[in-house]
């Protein structure tokens, strides 16, 4: 019986946090040995459950591929056997593997290649967690109710018939009916109780308290955990991702016409604080990403009302059809005291009518183009490719922005999906580096660049159809530039 084997397992099931919002699949683009590859992992929603890995390898000399999930909280001696990947019929470059995940939590999925050139291996961080509360299909519900009624009637009749000889048939029937009612009530109570516990442990963004503090010259954004935050969400176990403990995104409601990518500084284990750039006042949605020492990621969410900037005109309030992309140019990175903006902070204001036209204006008269030609379809692996051009139409030479050639932030119009991508995919680079150190593999630094030096691409598959806004950030000689695009993702046919 499943319960028996599961008992001890259930004792060790613990809640884990989620990275991103509504986007559970993992996308990775990098290199294993000399072989470039792209990996898409679709974790299961129940545990134990089967995960799927699609591995795209262009090199024809790769002879075998396998995947092996390592639970990060366990030692390397606790590895399960590797699962071999098979070539997908009709696809020369695509391999597929399935592997079991016993429980939710943080994993490093090692992808191993064999080839005459020495093969290679790379570890891909994976956060496996349940995302949604189950809903029973009505047809199944009706069937079960019908069977339940039949079983109840059968039990009442059987009890009465068995007691007929003793003259207590009626008593037996009533007792059986009461027992059946009690069983239904008890089962329902148990279900409600378990469903509540399950819902509490779902991977979901963690609410955080945010507030704005103002002094004579600046507005400061402060973050502290809510009273309800679990102890596991403490901020004293964070590691840096792209050199920052926290990546924070602000988007102004209701039109999402102002956007900021900031990096507050941890003042103590319960307090992050950072200087706010001169964003226009209003209500903002706040998303912040952190990575813990155990490789788990969290997305923190909040709403915050920003006052007008202190001492400065609200930039972006007077943008007749234009945009403004700004970033500091002279402050040291990761200032110990949050008295100044971080060098990698950036913000953007103004949405052009061209957002839907695959050509987004950039600050200074340049433009960014969305170069992906394939139609966007939900749950279909794709490359989101962008090119940046200067005011004179010449390609802009892209420079690394926090170690990457670009950062993409995607938000579905209803907020059910929010994710932060970079050319290496959706993985946390902090977790990837930890895995590389642990496993002795090469840190999966991005291949990142598109075909040309002014291009950048991001591997992704939109989890749901619908309307999305994409903020694409790159660094050029003039600073960080943000292109904003609105796209419609079609339902998978």
């Amino acid at each position, binding site marked *: 019986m499943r319960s028996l084997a599961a008992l001890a397992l259930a004792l060790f099931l613990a809640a884990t946090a989620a990275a991103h919002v509504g986007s559970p699949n993992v996308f990775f683009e990098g290199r294993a040995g000399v072989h470039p590859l792209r990996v898409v992992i679709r974790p299961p929603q129940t545990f134990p459950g089967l995960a799927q890995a699609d591995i795209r390898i262009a090199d024809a000399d790769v002879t075998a591929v396998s995947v092996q999930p390592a639970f990060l909280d366990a030692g390397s001696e*606790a590895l399960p056997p590797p699962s071999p990947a098979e070539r997908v019929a009709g696809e020369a470059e695509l391999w597929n593997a399935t592997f079991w995940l016993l429980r939710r939590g943080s994993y490093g999925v090692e992808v191993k290649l064999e080839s005459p050139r020495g093969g290679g291996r790379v570890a891909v961080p994976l956060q496996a967690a349940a995302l949604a509360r189950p809903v029973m299909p009505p047809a199944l519900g009706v069937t079960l109710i019908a069977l339940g009624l039949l079983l109840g009637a059968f039990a009442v009749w059987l009890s009465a018939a068995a007691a007929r000889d003793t003259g207590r048939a009626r008593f037996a029937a009533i007792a059986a009916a009461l027992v059946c009612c009690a069983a239904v009530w008890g089962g329902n109570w148990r279900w409600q109780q378990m469903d509540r516990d399950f819902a509490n442990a779902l991977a979901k963004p963690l609410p955080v308290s945010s507030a704005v503090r103002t002094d004579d010259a600046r507005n400061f954004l402060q973050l502290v955990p809510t009273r309800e935050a679990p102890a596991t969400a403490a901020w004293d176990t964070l590691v840096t991702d792209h050199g920052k403990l926290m990546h924070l995104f602000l988007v102004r409601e209701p039109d999402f016409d102002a956007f900021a990518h900031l990096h507050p500084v941890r003042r103590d284990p319960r307090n992050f604080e950072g200087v706010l750039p001169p964003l226009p006042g209003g209500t903002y949605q706040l998303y912040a990403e952190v990575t813990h020492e155990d490789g788990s990621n969290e997305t923190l969410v909040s709403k915050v009302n920003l006052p007008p900037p202190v001492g400065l005109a609200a930039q972006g309030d007077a943008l007749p059809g234009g945009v403004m992309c700004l970033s500091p140019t002279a402050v040291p990175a990761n200032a110990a005291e949050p008295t100044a903006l971080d060098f990698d902070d950036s913000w953007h204001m103004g949405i052009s009518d061209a957002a839907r036209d695959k050509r987004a204006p950039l600050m200074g008269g340049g433009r960014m183009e969305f170069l992906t030609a394939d139609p966007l379809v939900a749950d279909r692996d794709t490359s989101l490719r962008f090119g940046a051009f200067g005011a004179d139409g010449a390609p802009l030479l892209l420079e690394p922005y926090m170690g990457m050639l670009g950062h993409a932030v995607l938000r579905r119009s209803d907020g059910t999906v929010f994710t932060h991508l970079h050319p290496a995919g959706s993985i946390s680079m902090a977790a990837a580096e930890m895995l590389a150190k642990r496993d002795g593999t090469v840190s999966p630094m991005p291949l990142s660049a598109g075909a040309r030096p002014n291009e950048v691409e991001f591997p992704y598959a939109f989890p749901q159809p619908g309307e999305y806004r994409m903020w694409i950030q790159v660094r050029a000689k003039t600073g960080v530039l943000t292109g904003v695009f609105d796209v419609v993702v079609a339902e998978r046919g």
Partner: protein
Amino acid sequence: MIRARMAPEALLLAAAIAVPLTLFWDFSWESTINVDRFFGPPHAANYLAVAAAAAAAFRLVAVSTRRGDGGVSLGRARGPLGAWIVLWGALAFVAALLFDRWWQSNYGLAAGIWHPPQIAKALAYFAVVSGAWIALVARQTSTAAAIAAAFAAGAVLAMISVVTTAQSFANRQHSSVFYELGCATYPLVLVAHALAGRLRAPASAAAGAYMALVGAMVWVLPRFAATPQAGPVYNALDHLLAPPFPLLLIVPAAGLDFLLRRSPGRRASSSGWADALECGCAFFGLFALTQWLFSAFLLSPGADQWFFAGGGRDWPFFLRIDPEARTAFWDFMSPGLDLVGGFVAAALAIGSSRAGLWLGGALRGKA
């Protein structure tokens, strides 16, 4: 549903025995391999066992109806009470399986164990196995049939042992909850069979059958090579995990046989609280004494061998357990047996014995 070609009683017995055995196999499979599909070998065998029980019960009803035998009637159909209970259990199993499949693919194990469909499945299993026992007790027309009834009673005891496995590891056999659970359940079957069985020592025979059935799984399953297919693998296994060694129920069962069979006249009048008091106290005393000592042996190096599958050497692959905890009593999980726990366990044994006396009397009336 498979067709009953052998005598329905034999098929019913085989199916009743197969239900707990396939559940132990499933336990072993999931503790060793974990890759667990709807039609995985232990699951398929388990479904087959329930289907075979239903087919045998259906056949018993059909034969009784045709012959116009006594029994319980539903419309024109007549059949032994046990057969009807088996059919109810089979129908409940279908419903529970539908529910469980949905549950497993939506909640998995993340919501915890003993979820509603799992409880429903356990009820269905008990109905199938108990129904077979009741049907076979009513047909003890020969020594062979009486032995069959004892094995069916052993299957019911094995079912109890299946659902209480988590509390019955040797490491927990000094805790109050182990004795309370054992005293609340086993006496019911043992006392009832002591009264209704036709063998010389029916309760002992039933307990012996239980020990043989569970022991067979302890000795046979580890003969098959198997390795974990999911991680983390905290305990590397190269064979199917043996279930815990069976409880030495034959000792308290012999005491019950002695009490209830020492004179025919006493046996005929065994139905009151005085007998329940006597049986319950005897069961508790013998059960506690035997398991208290035997569990210490099971955790010792002397039990670290294939026969006892003890000594703390084999654990489910997913269980992270300290080396010291493998051979220690787990007092941290639940309080040890003390005066209060002993009193509660004895009281439960008395209540269970009282129910067993009532059931045994009723079964004997139909036998």
